[in-house]
């Protein structure tokens, strides 16, 4: 890739992350180090060759020539360059990684803040594993780009220095080398694209195909194992595997071909310089070695070119996300909605009402709760005060409703982290009170780390029913005017269920909160004063 090929409108990744002063300084220092390292390497080889040849010529010319040959400066320069190159390369790596890591931390937090501002009903859905994994991959690709950024000036400096040293062997020599070096990045970029684009694309497709087919199979694992269908299934997967293998082998060969092209091009530069050098053998040696080193330096550019297609893809996706604006609320945020009447179809309920949504399984009760919670858009005839549900922004809805959902999503982190999500500045007493209502306080007190117990991937060590009650406690802590509960007692034994319903009743009494309940079990339904048939709200 070269800077010229970038569309002018496209923000560079560094612009995207709006570098801080420290980051810019790091990158600048990294760039200087990269230049020093590239020049150090080039001069080390070139001067060594020149010194050797000059020494041989002087040695052959006799004692006087040897005396006249200044060996102290070149031999000291050689040692100095060896050390310079090492230190500069170390500095380049460290500084560029420092810049990249800081930049990526910025990208992550900016991206997160940007996404968090969105309205769930219109935001890109990143809840699936695939989408979030891809986001991580995109950010990593960007990191790679920042790390490689200082190499570009380093490569260019090496190329210029190579031409300058070749000029000592005559203008023709310098001119041809300059031409060769100027063409090289474009030739390499073009060949990389030509050779790798198709197999890279094919490999990505084949990998996606294999993965989705395998996931289908893994979901049907129980049947495959029960009926001994493994050989049959492996036969089925053999085709995408073969396709993937072929594409990846082709891609790997293309990588080899690109490396081979660099080698041949480096040799070509050396040959041309040797054939055109006209100012004596010592300067010719200098020019040849400098030319080889310059080509090698420019090859670093090519490594970026090699990955550019996939990096571009990542950049585009990230830019789309970073370009998201916070949705403007349809109307100014109304702080008085909490005192408003909730209209469910033809029925109206004042603050503190307790309502059950009724209807057969699968008739859309959960969907209505999620719509109230601002998690999905809905055309259901629901109004809050004078405003239709769709016209309320998410901030308004989240100030009104606290949902304990059926699948009880929990954050990775401790039990306390999950409770603190509900409200700022919650103390332990408040948490324990809420856990008491949810009949979970004793269970958590028995855990060795209590509230600080970290929850594993499946919410372990909490069981399914306990996760549910933790999510209930969290909804209580939010302190919203309306509580939305979806099957709060599913899977509880009768005694616990009775206790939970009683405590929840007390809590509602005490706080004056309203309730919208979905439950197929009779006991929680004793909490409500009114019922709304779901078919008055949803038409399937």
């Amino acid at each position, binding site marked *: 890739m070269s800077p010229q090929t970038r569309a002018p409108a496209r923000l560079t990744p560094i612009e995207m992350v709006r570098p801080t002063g420290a980051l810019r300084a790091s990158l600048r220092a990294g760039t200087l180090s990269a230049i020093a390292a590239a020049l*150090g390497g080039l001069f080390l*080889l070139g*001067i060594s*060759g020149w*010194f*050797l040849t000059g020494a*041989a010529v002087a040695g052959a010319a006799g004692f006087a020539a040897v005396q006249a040959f200044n060996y102290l400066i*070149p*031999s000291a320069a*050689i*040692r100095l360059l060896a050390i310079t190159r090492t230190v500069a*390369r170390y500095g380049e790596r*460290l500084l560029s*990684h420092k810049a990249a*890591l*800081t930049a990526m*931390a910025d990208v992550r937090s900016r991206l997160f*803040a940007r996404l968090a*501002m969105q309205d*769930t009903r219109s935001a890109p859905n990143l809840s699936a*594993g695939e989408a979030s994994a891809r*986001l*991580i991959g995109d950010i990593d690709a960007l990191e790679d780009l920042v790390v490689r950024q200082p190499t570009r000036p380093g490569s260019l400096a090496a190329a210029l220095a190579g031409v300058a040293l070749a000029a000592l062997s005559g203008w023709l020599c310098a001119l041809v080398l300059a031409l060769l070096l100027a063409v090289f990045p474009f030739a390499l970029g073009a060949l990389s694209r030509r050779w790798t684009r198709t197999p890279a694309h094919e490999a990505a497709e084949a990998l996606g195909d294999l*993965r989705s087919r*395998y996931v*289908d199979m*893994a979901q049907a*694992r129980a*049947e495959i*194992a*029960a*009926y*001994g269908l493994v*050989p049959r*299934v492996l036969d089925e997967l053999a085709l995408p*595997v073969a396709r993937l293998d072929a594409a990846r082998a082709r891609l790997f*060969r293309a990588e080899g071909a690109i490396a*081979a092209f660099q080698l*041949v091009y480096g040799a070509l530069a*050396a040959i041309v310089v*040797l054939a055109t050098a006209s100012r004596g*053998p010592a300067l*010719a040696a200098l020019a*040849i*070695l400098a030319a080889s080193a310059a080509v090698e330096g420019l090859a670093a550019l090519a490594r970026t070119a090699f990955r550019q297609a996939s990096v571009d893809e990542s950049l585009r996706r990230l830019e789309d996300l970073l370009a998201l604006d916070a949705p403007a609320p349809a109307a100014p945020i109304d702080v008085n909605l909490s005192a408003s009447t909730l209209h469910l179809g033809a029925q109206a309920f004042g603050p503190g009402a307790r309502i059950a949504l009724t209807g057969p399984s699968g008739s859309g009760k959960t969907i209505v709760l999620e719509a109230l919670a*601002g*998690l999905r858009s809905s055309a259901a005839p629901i109004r809050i005060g004078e405003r239709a549900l769709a016209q309320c922004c998410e901030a308004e809805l*989240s*100030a009104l409703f606290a949902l304990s959902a059926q*699948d009880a999503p929990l*954050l*990775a982190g401790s039990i306390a982290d999950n409770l603190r*999500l*509900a409200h700022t500045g919650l103390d332990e007493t408040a948490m324990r009170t809420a856990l008491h209502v949810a009949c979970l306080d004793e269970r958590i007190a028995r855990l060795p780390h209590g509230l600080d117990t970290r929850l594993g991937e499946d919410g*372990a*060590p909490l*069981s399914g*029913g306990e996760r549910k009650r933790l999510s209930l406690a969290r909804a209580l802590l939010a302190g919203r005017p309306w509580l939305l509960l979806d099957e709060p007692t599913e*899977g509880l034994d009768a005694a616990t269920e009775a206790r939970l319903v009683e405590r929840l009743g007390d809590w509602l009494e005490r706080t004056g909160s309203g309730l919208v309940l979905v439950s*197929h079990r009779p006991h929680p339904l004793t909490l409500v004063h009114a019922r709304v048939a779901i078919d008055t709200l949803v038409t399937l």
Partner: protein
Amino acid sequence: MKSNKAGHFWALDIVGAALFSAGLAGGVSALVAHQTTLPWLAALASGAVLRAGSVGLVHTLAMPIAQRDANVWRTNIMAHLLGGRLDRPLTAGASAALAVDHVHAIEEHGARFLPARISAVFGPLFAIGLIALASWVCALILLGTLIPFIIGMIFAGTAARRASERQLEALTALSGLFVDRIRHLPLIRHFAAQERIARQVESATHDVAQRTVAVLRAAFLSSAVLEFFSAIAVALVAVYCGFALLGLLPFTPPEPLTLARAFFALAMAPEVYLPMRRLAAAYHEKQMGEAAKAALEPYTPTAPAPNAPEAPAPAAPFTGLRVEGLTLAWDALTIGPLTFALDAQGLVALTGPTGSGKTSTLAAIAGQIAPAAGAILDSRGAPLDPAHIAWAAQRPLLLPATLRENIALAAPGATDAAILAVAARVGLDPVLARRGGLDLAIDHRGSGLSGGERRRIGLARAILSGRPLMLCDEPTADLDAASAAQITALLCDLASERALLVATHDAPLAALAQQEIAL
């Protein structure tokens, strides 16, 4: 696989480099002697072609070798993950990470790291040997820098490895946190916790960035060692040769040195370190490949072909199921203990909320997940024969084949009449009538089939298998009321002829069971 033989072809690269260096040395000497450089230009060109050829050869050969090895891993892992007995249930995503991504890492390891390692073993010594042909003193100098280099690498390398392992852990934890918070954005927005969580994410990412920089220092130090010795090698060779050619060495040169020999040694010096650089470049693949192998180790049983279709043993007929103290445990989660019995006919329901372990319990009874404690027996007290178990899945397997073949997956010899009878029984006849009978072609996505129709295919398959114990996973979930009622009636009917264990959170279905086991 311990090695990838394609790496041996890197030797050709060194021969090519020697030819190229000879071309340089000869060319410069020819300039000094005012002779034609033409033959040396030819040497330069042929050296480059040889090097290019060796790169091409390695890249052509290494991948197929690596893939052959990776495919052995893939077959074993897939067979075990899809058909073997696991210690804990895996999500499809986690299973795919093992079978697809980790195997991919092993392939990369085989294609990039292993050939580089072979060349790192012989490459430096081979290059030094070639240099010795021109100047044995230069060869000695290079050998001399190689020894402290190796010692330095061992020290710096160990530190770098530890550092990069720590970095990997920190980054994994961070991206875990980031992914988790991104996934739960709807929840975070619902509780209006955007700003708080954003601050938490910001401080966590910056904290990890700072710690990572600190540990990277050590990693880059080992590269600096590599750089330093390769630079110092060039410098020493240049200075020795220069002074020898000038005749300024404080001692008599122990060898006759010409410009051509000296230049050859100088041009070859970086080649001594090239194989090690190649190895360092493949360090990431090494790390990922080894991590992948370690992760896959628990899933590669020593016994070949896990759960191959069992030979139809002269099995005793099924007379009932007895589950005694069945306990499942992984992480800190425990399911059970469960104790219950089921006769040769009848319906037992396993109930509990989502995530309470219903499916895992069924899988344990089918012998697909190893229980932590307890026994799964037939009514006579002998271990349950897996060949007695049919499984009706929530989302049944569909293979790209005809509907006939898909229904008869578990009973390959079934006649069309038998298949049609079962299809009618589960209510598939509308599909058959609408879509052209048993020859209906099904793709792997099951395009054109509704969730309910798919569920019915799974039921038909289980019935047709003729196995006397049927495990049904959420047979009525996500179905419309009419379909759910039909399936419930069918299950009741089936319960009069065979044993059914049904995992469900559908109250009407659970109410029909002779026994309800709540998790």
